[in-house]
């Protein structure tokens, strides 16, 4: 479904990604783990066109994303829940959800009902300004907003960041539920243990290179991964 080949990204003179390749198949949960500054967020931002690639290819569902206008990528049903949530703070919860359906408003009210069923908290707070929500609620809103686009695939960047352990569990449950409904997930996480435990496959990113890849269950038992990312 998503195929990234030999992707290179530079920030000025600094090379952020030095030729990474990864594949996500239809229906999978794939995670991308690694330390701060390894290039995980850059990878996701380059896929959805928020950063420009220097070379390489990104193909989603047969479309060359490097040749696609960034604001048109959502039309291909590829959604992105960015790091730090990036909700619209001066809009109400409901308006944020409406913005999620901006590219494809057909059937918006039904999709919104589905999102409210999944996240009852958002329904309770639908008239509230999104900037006044707690961190966990904002994360739910960011996921809900992505679902409003009726995506085939969601890129999720650090969904557990800054959440309490209870909420971390909840957000990972939600990711699994969403995946069971047929939405493919590419997950970027610092919480490698949790990410690997729900993923089919995983890639380890170190300073712009992919160093380890394989089935998530194998990576959980890999000595290098255990030592560097699982604290064992």
């Amino acid at each position: 479904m998503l195929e990234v080949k030999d992707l290179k990204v530079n920030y000025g003179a600094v090379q952020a990604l030095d030729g990474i390749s990864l594949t996500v198949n239809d229906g999978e949960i794939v995670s991308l783990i690694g330390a701060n500054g390894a290039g995980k967020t850059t990878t996701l931002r380059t896929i959805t066109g928020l950063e420009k690639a220097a070379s390489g290819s990104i193909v989603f569902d047969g479309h060359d994303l490097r040749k696609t206008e960034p604001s048109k990528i959502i039309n291909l049903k590829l959604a992105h829940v960015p790091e730090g949530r990036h909700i619209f703070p001066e809009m109400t919860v409901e308006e944020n959800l409406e913005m999620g359906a901006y590219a494809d408003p057909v059937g918006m009210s039904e999709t919104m009902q589905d999102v409210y069923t999944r996240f009852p908290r958002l329904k309770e707070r639908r008239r509230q300004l999104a900037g006044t929500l707690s961190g966990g609620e904002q994360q739910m809103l960011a996921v809900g907003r992505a679902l409003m686009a009726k995506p085939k695939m969601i890129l999720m960047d650090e969904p557990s960041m800054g959440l309490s352990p209870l909420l971390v569990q909840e957000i990972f449950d939600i990711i699994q539920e969403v995946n069971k409904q047929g939405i493919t997930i590419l997950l970027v996480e610092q919480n490698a243990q949790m990410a690997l435990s729900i993923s089919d496959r995983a890639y380890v990113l170190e300073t712009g290179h992919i160093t380890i890849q394989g089935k998530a269950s194998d990576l959980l038992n890999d000595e290098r991964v255990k030592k560097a990312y699982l604290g064992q």
Partner: protein
Amino acid sequence: MTFSLFFQSIVNGLNLGATYALIALGYTMVYGIIRMINFAHGDFIMIGAYTLFYTVPLMVNNGMPAWLAVFAAIVVCAIVGVLVEIFAYRPVRKAGPMSALITALAMSIFLQNLAMVLFGARPHNVAAIFSLPSVTVAGVTISLNVVLTIAIGLAIMLGLQLFVKKTKLGKAMRAVPQDRDASTLMGINVNKIITVTFAIGSALAAVAALMYCTTYPRVTNNMGTTMGMKAFIAAVLGGIGVIPGAMLGGVLIGLIEVFVRLFAPGWYEAVTYGTLIVILLVKPSGILGRNTGEKV
């Protein structure tokens, strides 16, 4: 002060204030979306006023009502606004706020001098746009022209508020300044929204020109400087970037000017500009603005 003088001043203040408010909206919408003060915005009023000067006689000679000329002014101002954004502001958008500010000041000087070359330095008189009578109610004489321009101003502000609250395009216009990356991810073409914002802001300047010329029917190439500066103060007073703030600030500055002129005619501009200093000292984010730490 007699009641009739007080009431008349309220009407005059609302008239001037609604004009300022429409101009302030242009400043505030553009600032809201690209964090830049478009100092050439005042000159869009001049462009609107010159368009009225040329098109009002055209309308009248063809047996059409003079006010239809405002549509010509709206189109001309919107086109000029969009061209200025695309050719002058967009190339320097990533170069930082100082470059943008200097470009805007240069654009203002350019437009004023271009107008002088094209139309001459002598003031032109705009033919009467509305010719409604005055009425006397309870000893107060009020020009219906003024009442009409206030009504137009208020209707446009109300319409704009509904537009940004309810329509898809309006919501996109609110989303972009809040989070540009997230807006792109939602499918909003940010450049297109910026262009639309300039078009609407400039079109409002055309309506402001209509309101101004109804009361003071004189056009000069530098008429935008003072008007623009006062509307800018109104936008800052109300809270720059906040649409209802521009409306509130405009009406307040209009009322302040009219009432100060009543008691101390020589002082009214000093008080207007003093208001800016006081606001920047006391509440730099403006009356309705939220404190973000970032300032003009």
